[in-house]
């Protein structure tokens, strides 16, 4: 345990230092881009808990982000709350919905859950539009603007806290139970672990993270509409998770970097075909390196050991 601790600290400390000092070396606009990497990272942390640790697929995590984002936006725009205080509330509301969703989700397995969550993500913007006296409908809600550096530090402070929190939770017996469930549900049940409890909990935790990420999306963009959280967001979250390595918390950084920067770089390569490249990369990674970046690292590490 202490060896793992040392290993993780070895990654975390320099990482934290890089994050803390980066804005001094990059332009203001790049700080905004890296702030966005930060909130994708938070969302992926949550998604990794759900899929990597409790083995449930969600193609609809954008909807939980939307719940968090809109909670935050409504509190700021309609009730004048200060942005920062809305973030934990957004997480709690989304987390609550996640717990509520987790219960019926127990009855759905694998593909069926994928289908159901896909449906939620597709239909969610319509719900936002429907309750327009609440949500501002398609006109959206306008929020206060903040400087890029401020957004950067806010996002990464939260991301850091989220990472530490997630790591702590997973290091406890809760994490062990999650892993047991993932590896073999039947075996886990026969050793007394209640899948219902843990699976629902996993949904709640991952939705909490997604809600916080959504609030950060709203605050950094200073504007939310039903199109701020489209189905493509949910799909890209899954892409980022897969490329980073399912179940790998540090891999979430790689995934987040991919989600933020791949569209930009793909369009540099070819103005018309950024999507082709994105899709090709995704297919390629799944075929050749299904463990994602984290899997690659493990391969490298294990090939080094005698």
């Amino acid at each position, binding site marked *: 345990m202490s060896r793992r601790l040392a290993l993780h600290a070895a990654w975390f400390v320099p990482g934290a230092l890089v994050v803390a000092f980066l804005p001094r070396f990059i332009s203001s606009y790049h700080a905004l881009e890296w702030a966005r990497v930060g909130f994708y990272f938070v969302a992926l942390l949550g998604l990794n808990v759900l*899929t990597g640790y409790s083995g449930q*697929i969600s*193609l609809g995590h954008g909807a939980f982000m939307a719940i968090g984002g809109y909670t935050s936006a409504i509190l700021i725009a309609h009730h004048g709350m200060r942005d920062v205080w809305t973030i934990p509330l957004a997480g709690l509301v989304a987390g609550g919905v996640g717990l509520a969703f987790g219960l*019926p989700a127990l*009855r*759905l397995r*694998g*593909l*069926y859950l*994928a*289908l*159901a969550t*896909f*449906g*939620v993500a*597709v*239909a969610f*913007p*319509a*719900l936002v*539009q*429907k309750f327009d006296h609440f949500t501002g409908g398609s006109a959206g809600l306008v929020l206060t603007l903040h400087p890029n550096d401020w957004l950067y530090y806010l996002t990464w402070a939260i991301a850091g806290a989220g990472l530490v929190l997630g790591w702590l939770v997973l290091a406890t017996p809760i994490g062990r139970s999650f892993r047991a469930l993932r590896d073999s549900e*039947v075996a886990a049940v026969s050793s007394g672990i209640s899948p219902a409890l843990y699976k629902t909990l996993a949904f709640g935790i991952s939705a909490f993270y997604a809600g916080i990420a959504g609030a950060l999306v709203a605050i950094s963009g200073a504007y939310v509409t039903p199109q701020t959280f489209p189905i493509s967001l949910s*799909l890209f979250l*899954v*892409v980022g998770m*897969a490329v980073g390595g*399912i179940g790998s918390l540090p891999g979430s950084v790689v995934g987040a970097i991919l989600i933020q920067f791949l569209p930009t770089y793909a369009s540099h390569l*070819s103005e*018309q*075909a*950024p*999507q*082709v*490249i*994105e*899709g*090709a*990369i*995704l*297919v390629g990674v*799944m*075929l050749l390196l*299904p463990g994602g970046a984290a899997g690659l690292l493990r391969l490298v590490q294990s090939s080094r050991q005698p």
Partner: protein
Amino acid sequence: MTEFSQQVVSGLASGGIYASLALAVVIVYRSSGVINFAQGEMATFATFLAWTFLHHGISYWPAFALTLAIAFAGGVALERVVIRPVEGRPVLTVVILTIGLLILVNGATQWIWGGATRKFPSPFSTRPVHVGSAAFSIQDLGIVGVSLASVALLTLFFRFTKLGLGLRAAAVNPEESRLVGVRVGWMLALGWGLAAALGAVSGMMVAPVVFLDPNMMQGVLLYAFAAAVLGGLASPVGAVVGGLALGVVLNLLGTYVSTFGGQMRLVGGLGVILAVLLIRPTGLFGRTAVRRV
């Protein structure tokens, strides 16, 4: 009453569109146990191919047949090259793979043909036909008819041909099928090829109505999934019945229950998926699978 019958008829027409794509989804599921999230995009791509043939002066039915052949070959190739290597891997890997395909194919379509909306001809006349007080067109009948014919052909294929039997066997029990000489690998590829061809048919039926553009099938995909789930994911008959029923139900809901107009139709579709999966996951026509521990 007039409006009711009109909405039912329009609902059947829309439902025919959902049914035709749902069929493709079901065939893939039936043969490899996978949901191909890229099914709609593949159908759109095939339809654009057909458009190119027509644009170069090839007449309708030869272009149709040529497109089907290429789609079939494409589906087979796709299964062998991209899906085969991830056989047996966790469900999530395959799901992500098909999502990658969705992004890739949609991007390719945009890249090759651009985003402009195009006309696509229909083999059926668009003259309105009046039955009592309701009106629809031969084209609508045609879409429904083609879906029904496809289902009938598929059912005959699965039940009465050796190849069809092999496909079913390979899907249900690959190991034992291999023992009796079924080339399981090729059966899976055949399933994907069939589905791709069905998707192409669906696209070519739908494009005259909704007009051809790279995002044509995105509005249909969720409803196609809902139809497939409603009918029972492994049942072609279920997919068609589910699609037609879904079209009618959504139309009636949209007309008579004001909450469900406009954008809320999507929520209706979602509601169907959730309701079926939670209450009766095997759908109207499916059979319960037993999971062996």
